[in-house]
């Protein structure tokens, strides 16, 4: 019996297959809202996976990660408003801006530890949020509509919802693979070691600050890409995308799904957003159980859903 064939891996494969079949199913039953929902799920899952690179593996809890969704989104939105619709110009800029912001914020925030680091990342994200509100030309508090999605010529038409969904899914799976390779590389070992015992890492000769900073930038850049996808999905960008509660959502997805694995946050994103869809149909006060559930997960099921699956697979 292959070591790969266990409950958890079967679950993961099944989930991926299900995600791949969403457009097919949606076309069959004629419900395109489902595809829209899952496009959003896939994009946010990508953001959550990028967050988990620094949070679960690096021990750096960023409460400002949603800022990159906004930076990526606004980069594209601003260019679109100024008449530049080519994705070949917009997307690299979105990534570059995200990377620069991550570099600046990381360089300052990583001088602190623990909760202070967390609050500082939150503070910087709030700063960007307020800046966006102040951008009158680009919608300010109300946000702005994007009339034309990123153009990639004959390569792909993002207005084709099915094509767009598969692009997002492909990028999600690529992200998962790349993050998995990073986590297990030499670089990943340093990041994990620094999370586990930073003092020891420095004692054996690692200048941990610079590695953590690079990791922070990588995570921010990936999330900026998610932001580019998100703005194309919603055809709209507003400061609300960057509010600290959105960063909190990403954290919940990662913790709920499983901070200890690369794929965990994907599970968390699916679980959280599907639950949100289902429960908000039942009562508008469903969110009140989220808090205590989250607390219980933190106290008793620290490894999240993926952790529970892995534990069950070992027995």
């Amino acid at each position, binding site marked *: 019996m292959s070591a790969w064939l266990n409950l958890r891996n079967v679950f993961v494969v099944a989930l991926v297959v299900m995600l791949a079949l969403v457009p097919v199913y949606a076309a069959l039953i004629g419900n395109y809202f489902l595809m829209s929902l899952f496009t959003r799920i896939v994009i946010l899952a990508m953001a959550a996976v990028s967050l988990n690179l620094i949070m679960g593996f690096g021990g750096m809890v960023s409460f400002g990660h949603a800022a990159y969704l906004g930076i990526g989104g606004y980069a594209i939105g601003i260019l679109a408003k100024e008449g530049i619709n080519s994705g070949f110009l917009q997307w690299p800029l979105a990534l570059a801006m995200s990377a620069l912001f991550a570099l600046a914020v990381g360089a300052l925030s990583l001088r602190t530890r623990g909760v202070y680091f967390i609050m500082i990342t939150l503070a910087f994200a709030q700063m960007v949020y307020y800046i966006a509100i102040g951008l009158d030309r680009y919608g300010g508090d109300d946000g702005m509509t994007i009339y034309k999605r990123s153009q990639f010529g004959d390569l792909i038409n993002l207005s084709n919802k099915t094509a767009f969904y598969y692009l997002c899914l492909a990028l999600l799976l690529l992200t998962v693979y790349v993050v998995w390779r990073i986590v297990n590389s030499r670089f990943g070992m340093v990041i994990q070691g620094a999370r586990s015992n930073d003092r020891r890492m420095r004692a054996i000769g*690692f200048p941990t600050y610079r590695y953590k900073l690079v990791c922070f930038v990588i995570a921010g850049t990936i999330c900026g890409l998610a932001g580019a996808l998100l703005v194309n999905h919603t055809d709209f960008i507003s400061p609300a995308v960057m509010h600290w509660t959105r960063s909190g959502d990403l954290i919940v997805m990662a913790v709920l799904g499983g901070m200890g694995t690369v794929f965990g946050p994907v599970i968390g994103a699916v679980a959280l957003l599907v639950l949100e869809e289902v429960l908000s149909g039942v009562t508008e006060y469903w969110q009140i159980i989220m808090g205590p559930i989250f607390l219980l997960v933190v106290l008793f099921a620290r490894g999240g859903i993926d952790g529970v699956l892995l534990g069950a697979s070992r027995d």
Partner: protein
Amino acid sequence: MCCWVQVVTEALLHVEHVSKRFGGIVASDDITLLVPAGELHAIIGPNGAGKSTLIGQLAGELAPDAGRIAFGGHDITALPTYRRSQLGLARSFQITSLFPDFTVLDNVALAVQAHAGHSFHFWQAARNEDALRAPAHVALARVGLAERSGVLVSRLSHGEHRQLEIAMALATSPRMLLLDEPMAGMGPDESARMVNILRELKRELTILLIEHDMEAVFALADRITVLVYGRTIASGAPEAIRANAEVRQAYLGEQEAVDG
């Protein structure tokens, strides 16, 4: 060569007039210490003598208020910890400080990796890299942990933790080891094993050993320095220290003389 001509060699570690206060407490009082290459130098002293503070300053976690520390000719007084490690000064911790969710081999491989160039490699799996695993296995074998390489650190016994501490320090290919009470909390069998390990290491490394275990100290040390209330009250060959009245009174006298 005439015995009484003292050949002055450049000390590998040169601690010059190092002082450190915490508020009203003088933890290090004008400490001067020279450790030539190849020597095993032991530091002993009652609790509160400032041994941990001294190691902290040597390792780079604490900044001395005054004085200078030189290692291999370099002034390291202001160097951060990781740079000192890169220069070849390795330390072990008095209170075990390892990576609990990693395996024994992973722990040591990390130490090897720290001295195997930069770590901005993002693609190849580090656990498959023989360049890291092989030296790690060697370090583990030297401390007698070869069979435990696949075990999670959180599952090890206390004695094995202490052995792993040494292996981590060794894996960084150091010129000098700063060992902070490596035998802390060990029973007689484990201590004897550790003494043998250290005796082997003595042959190729310079060692600064902080210890309470007097049997081990007198079995291993080439020279001993005695620290009391942050000051060095005596420094010299083991027999001289054993016979020193002031030392006996301050420290050794409290316990039965070790086969005097």
